């Protein structure tokens, strides 16, 4: 049978419509389309897709189940490896992972693995009424710090092995970046809530409003009888560029802008959380967070939103689908431009003018690409004298984060690198302190959901071995 050269298309909301709402952009496969897409899998011998997945889901096996129409069977296979399939099916950068390795992808488009994963998870969440098999307790207690992707994965894996896991979350709601960072239109919050409920059904206890390092220290956790601690506290402090004008009114870190909109629900019209409804928004950066911020600003009613990135389209680190969606929605890409100053309003006649101190523009300088840097990405080189001012009444800095010092500064014997990231043994997640493991952005700095999940998984395995061997 001839293989369809292209993936079955993902139904999406019309770009003109979705640019004005916060409903999910991609609508998901139906069962017939999912089964047709599953037919495209060659079930090849090498299964390169599995090695491309940071949590090593048995991809061809679950796809075989989809082919047969056994969607619960497919879910069972995925959930052996992943605690958050409905999330990963939506936010993983599949093009550089499973789908990037797909054998079919050599000649044609790869199998839509992410779309199938999402379909299976959504099917399960909509149709499964049974009870989870609560594992028998092994009597050991473990703490997970942070309820983002790495923490949830680590907690899920340990709970399935019979550990009594307590997650401490600093914010009032569990989910970490899945609830404060990734917007509703890309990852609906009821899906995150559902995945968290599933974890709770395995016996995971989630305590919100507890800041480890402040409310309770890691030392106290051990004194309380917990045998191991996993630190998945996330990336932490937003970076700024250090250019003039970053304290003007209308300048946000992407973290703040997205947290106001997502976690604090400023995107809902009647919210009590203030957020700027700007006309011309400039988002500095080229990653997924920049895309999320730009598309959120557009949905909040901006007339124009621009991504300002110092390299070219080729080097843009965001997931391909997000860039495409952003372009379809009308986000402008001001590439090869680097901000040098944020300009603010100043009335020389009237010091009390309420407009004083608000952003009016972003001065940028044009760049060209030079020699590759140590990571192999071509370095942007500024073109002297090419500065100009873009109209902007809001500037959002989405240029990454540096690790949060809270846990390091209150935990003896926890080594960090020169950037402040916790140092771990890559194969286990073990830190310099016995019984303390770490993973996710707290170790790597800002990265992806699935890499954090992979790290949570690795650490769960190592924690199990550590406690078993004691």
């Amino acid at each position: 049978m001839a293989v369809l050269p292209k993936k079955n298309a993902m139904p999406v909301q019309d770009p003109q419509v979705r640019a004005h709402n916060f409903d999910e952009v991609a609508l998901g496969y139906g069962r017939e389309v999912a089964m047709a897409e599953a037919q495209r899998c060659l079930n090849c011998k090498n299964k390169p897709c599995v090695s491309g997945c940071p949590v090593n889901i048995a991809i061809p096996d679950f796809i075989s189940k989809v082919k047969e129409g056994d969607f619960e069977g497919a879910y069972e296979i995925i959930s052996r490896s992943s605690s958050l399939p409905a999330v990963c099916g939506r936010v993983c950068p599949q093009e550089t992972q499973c789908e990037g390795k797909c054998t079919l992808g050599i000649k044609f488009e790869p199998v839509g693995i992410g779309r199938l994963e999402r379909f299976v998870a959504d099917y399960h969440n909509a149709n499964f009424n049974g009870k989870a098999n609560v594992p028998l307790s092994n009597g050991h207690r473990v703490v997970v710090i942070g309820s983002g992707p790495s923490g949830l994965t680590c907690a899920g894996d340990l709970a399935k092995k019979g550990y009594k896991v307590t997650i401490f979350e600093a914010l009032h709601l569990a989910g970490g970046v899945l609830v404060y960072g990734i917007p509703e239109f890309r990852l609906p919050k009821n899906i995150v809530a559902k995945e968290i409920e599933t974890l709770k059904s395995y016996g995971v206890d989630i305590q919100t409003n507890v800041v480890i390092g402040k409310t309770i220290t890691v030392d106290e956790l051990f004194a309380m009888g917990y045998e191991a601690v996993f630190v998945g506290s996330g990336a932490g402090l937003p970076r700024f560029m250090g250019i003039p004008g970053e304290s003007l009114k209308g300048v946000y870190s992407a973290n703040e802008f997205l947290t106001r909109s997502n976690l604090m629900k400023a995107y809902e019209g009647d919210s009590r959380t203030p957020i700027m409804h700007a006309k011309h928004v400039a988002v500095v950066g080229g990653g997924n967070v920049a895309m999320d911020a730009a598309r959120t600003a557009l949905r909040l009613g901006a007339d124009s939103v621009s991504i300002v990135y110092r390299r070219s389209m080729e080097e843009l680190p965001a997931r391909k689908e997000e860039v495409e969606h952003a372009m379809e929605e009308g986000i402008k890409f001001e590439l090869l431009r680097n901000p040098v100053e944020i300009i603010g309003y100043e009335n020389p006649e009237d010091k009390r003018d309420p407009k004083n101190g608000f952003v009016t523009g972003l001065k940028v300088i044009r760049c060209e690409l030079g020699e590759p840097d140590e990571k192999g990405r071509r370095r942007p080189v500024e073109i002297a004298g090419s500065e100009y001012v873009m109209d902007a009444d809001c500037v959002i800095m989405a240029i990454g984060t540096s690790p949060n010092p809270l846990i390091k500064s209150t935990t003896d014997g926890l080594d960090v690198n020169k950037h402040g990231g916790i140092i771990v043994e890559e194969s286990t997640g073990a830190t310099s302190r016995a019984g303390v493991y770490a993973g996710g952005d707290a170790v790597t700095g800002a990265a992806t959901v699935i890499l954090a999940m992979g790290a949570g998984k690795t650490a769960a395995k190592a924690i199990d071995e550590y406690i078993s061997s004691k």
Partner: protein
Amino acid sequence: MYRIVNKKELNPTVTMMDIYAPLVADKALAGQFIILRVDGDGERIPLTVAGCDKEAGTVKIIFQVVGGTTMRLNAKKQGEYISDFVGPLGRPTETDGVKKVCIVGGGVGCAIALPVAKRFKELGCEVHSIIGFRNKDLVILEDEFAACSDKLTVMTDDGSYGRQGVVTAPLKEGIEGGENYDKVIAIGPLIMMKFVVATTKPFGVPTVVSMNPIMIDGTGMCGGCRLTVGGKMKFACVDGPDFDGFEVDFDEAMRRSSMYSDFEKRERELSCNLFKKEA
């Protein structure tokens, strides 16, 4: 959920509450703050800890009813609950090497200044306190300050109580009169702290100010609370809230604090109308 164990109105716009939060009560030190949400869809607001009772597991907060959220908080009765309460956040006030200190509090800032004054007193320091209010009706915590101060000066803007004038007047007199303070700690409105610093700087008396900017998470994640201190960007939630007053860019902080003034005004009006209807 966190229970309001005790509620007391200190003056027509300032309320005190003891909230049951044993983990926070166990750790909180003078100068640190908490973040609370009144109800499920409310905003997160930072409030500096005004004291705590480790035995009872309660944390004392004192707040001025200024916006929608504080109105909602103030509408809660003793025995009712608020949905979220997290802390202690920020660094405690540094007390090392101080033998003689002047605590300057302005308005509701006195609520935060009090535990700091108490802490220095417990450590055996000589404590002078200057507390200022707009008028007699707004004076709070006078007895409490008197109990932990070797010298207390109460100021009102209109002279309806204590001495007439601003807090910087007795501060300047004291310094000129030879009070060798090791440290001055100013807690109150930004404009007051700015003028305290302007008063102490010529004499080179080390001055610490407690900043209370716009904040969301309180753990360093959002960067909304950023300030310029000594030409560098600092986050009040993790680097502060106490900073070297000589180094803080107050004008910038005042500007940033007005970022949402339109929104706050609208929200305040909405809340007022809401409570009018309920009443």
